[in-house]
């Protein structure tokens, strides 16, 4: 039975698809329209599509350890660091970025006014997190170690909004090491394939 991924237009499902491509796992997609979803608000729809995407990528990275890119490190210690930066992404990176996507890209589509104060706070939180990344990436090629891992992969789909429709690429470009890291991870063939097969809809 082939893996089915719902809502490939959106960032969280892209996180899963990216992992599947890195691990050379076949998959199918089922289109979901965020704005016309099942009597649920766009916010509820996004939460539904985002549900536990990191658990899903952990599962596939573990189950298909022997094929594709190694995303979980070579040692238990490296794995510990990967889990750490995956949690950092979940707690310190995605929340403010997710809110920015919501405020600046989704609200306009549903006629809801955006909150400039919140946008400013989101940007400040994200900047603080990226300052920590800048320091980390000055001593490490990727977040957990010198090898690309699930922790780096998890950042790619939402970060793409920063350099495209959110027009906040300066948050990345103003930081030399973050910029170098972003260029590296976003030029992986797997991400290029995701963008080609499932272009973002906003």
């Amino acid at each position, binding site marked *: 039975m082939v893996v089915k991924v719902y809502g490939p237009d959106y960032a969280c499902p892209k996180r899963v698809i990216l992992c599947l491509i890195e691990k050379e796992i076949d998959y199918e997609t089922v289109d979901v329209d965020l704005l016309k979803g099942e009597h649920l608000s766009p916010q509820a729809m996004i939460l539904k599509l985002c549900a*536990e995407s*990191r*658990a899903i990528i*952990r*599962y596939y990275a573990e*189950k298909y350890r022997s094929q594709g890119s190694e995303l979980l490190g070579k040692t*238990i*210690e490296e*794995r*510990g*660091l990967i*889990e*750490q930066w*995956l*949690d*950092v992404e*979940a*707690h*310190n990176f995605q929340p403010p970025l997710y809110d920015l996507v919501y405020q600046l890209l989704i609200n306009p589509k549903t006629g809801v006014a955006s909150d400039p104060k919140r946008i400013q706070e989101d940007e400040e939180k994200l900047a603080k997190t990226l300052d*920590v990344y800048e*320091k*980390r990436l000055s001593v490490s090629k990727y977040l957990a170690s010198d090898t690309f891992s699930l922790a780096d992969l998890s950042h790619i789909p939402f970060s793409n909004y920063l350099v495209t429709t959110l027009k906040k690429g300066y948050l990345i470009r103003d930081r030399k090491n973050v910029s170098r890291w972003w260029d590296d991870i976003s030029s992986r063939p797997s991400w290029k394939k995701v963008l080609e097969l499932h272009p973002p809809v906003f």
Partner: protein
Amino acid sequence: MTIKVHGSVFSTATLRVRVCLTEKSLDYEFIPVDLRSGHHKLDSFLSLNPFGQIPAFQDGDLNLFESRAITRYIAHSYAGKGIPLVSSAVEDVWAEVEAQRYEPPAAKLTWELGIKPMLGMATDDDVVKAQEAELAKVLDVYEARLAHSKYLGGEAFSLADLHHLPTLKYLMASPVKAVFDARPHVAAWVADIMARPSWQKVLAEY
């Protein structure tokens, strides 16, 4: 001692790591971090956790932060010792649910009803009301799940259950207890996991 936990006695994230180590029958050195004097903002601590948050964890040369990454590391690294805690796929899903859905309202309620009173600060009743409503929605999902499953991830206790213990410590000692008690399967599960000897041991330690 090779394992060190830097944190505070009252911190839920620190408790999360401590109860995991105890379930695994692992000895560790507990190093208090004095938050009130800003110890966690000093360079010496930032070198352990650049986000300036507790806990920070050391096992020999390995240095980790983020409590749930630490518990996962402990489960893998000490797989042969104590209770088995390496998560299955389903258990991992429920660990994500705890982190992404349960923790936000639980942490805010813990702050308002558990920590603020200890610090002599006033509880914000509007926040409590709103977060209780959020928590209730999550616990409705738990109630349905636990009607078919002894623990969140299946028939065995796992990290998915363990990760709840620290916030439960505060919430079950507050008026929010009623939200849990109103759901019989949730209430039974809470009573079961809080009665675990490892949790009792951690609570008795300080």
